[in-house]
């Protein structure tokens, strides 16, 4: 059961490190695609198919294409070195952050998948959604119900963010029309 999770963790870690270290941007983008794949499997394994679908549509479709388009519009640095030189001060800073977090916050978290975890078992909120989704809204997918009904305003914000991204891109690139 958890063998899948552990191997996935290793895979995601490797892809992330490779993304960080590639000097060549195109290679980094390609490897970042692999990272997105690993992430999507991990989301799926953690029982979040909606999230995994979004990651799939975004990671395989939108983000990668936009990244590729960007470097097609700009340039690709020609360089002999494949990997970045490791920046020691930055590494020390990030390593210190990591160690502090692992030492202090990690033991305070609940085990992954613990049915007693507060966020999951909270009868006030999560339990309410699971109990009453179908009754209140008539849809079976609780995610859709929470998305569109209970927290519809978040979704409104999400729609506005997307709209704002369109407007912002036009403003940044100095255009007045959408296409």
């Amino acid at each position, binding site marked *: 059961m958890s063998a899948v999770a552990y191997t996935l963790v290793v*895979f995601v870690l490797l892809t992330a490190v490779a993304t960080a270290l590639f000097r060549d941007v195109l290679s980094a983008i390609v490897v970042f695609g692999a990272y997105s794949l690993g992430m999507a499997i991990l989301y799926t394994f953690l029982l979040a198919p909606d999230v995994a679908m979004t990651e799939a549509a975004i990671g395989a479709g939108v983000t990668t294409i936009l990244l590729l388009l960007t470097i097609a519009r700009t340039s690709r640095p020609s360089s002999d070195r494949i990997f970045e030189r490791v920046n020691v001060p930055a590494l020390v800073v990030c390593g210190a952050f990591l160690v502090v977090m692992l030492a202090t916050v990690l033991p305070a978290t609940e085990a992954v998948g613990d049915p007693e975890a507060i966020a999951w078992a909270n009868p006030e909120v999560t339990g309410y959604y699971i109990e009453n989704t179908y009754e209140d809204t008539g849809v079976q997918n609780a995610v859709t119900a929470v998305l569109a009904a209970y927290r519809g305003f978040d979704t409104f914000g999400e729609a506005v963010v997307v709209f704002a991204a369109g407007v912002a891109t036009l403003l940044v690139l100095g255009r007045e029309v959408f296409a």
Partner: protein
Amino acid sequence: MTAELIDDIFLGAAALFVLLAIAMFYRAVAGPTTQDRLLAVNVLGTNTVVILALLAAGLDQPWFLDVALIYALLNFLMAVAVSKFTVDRGGVL
């Protein structure tokens, strides 16, 4: 009994597929040309489809196949995009 056994088989197979993915990822890191990396990631995409399908069977969640379907449909986009930009820009990318 057999149902659980089948689930375990599928989950175990999924883990092995992830291991193979890790092995293939070597090519994505080492591959001398960008096309090698692209190829490795493309194979990983196919692998992902399989892993997702195995997870769907192993965890009895048929919804997971939807995710796999998205990957099956969109996986070749990256390769096509790179190919397109390479040809358009005369091998610059």
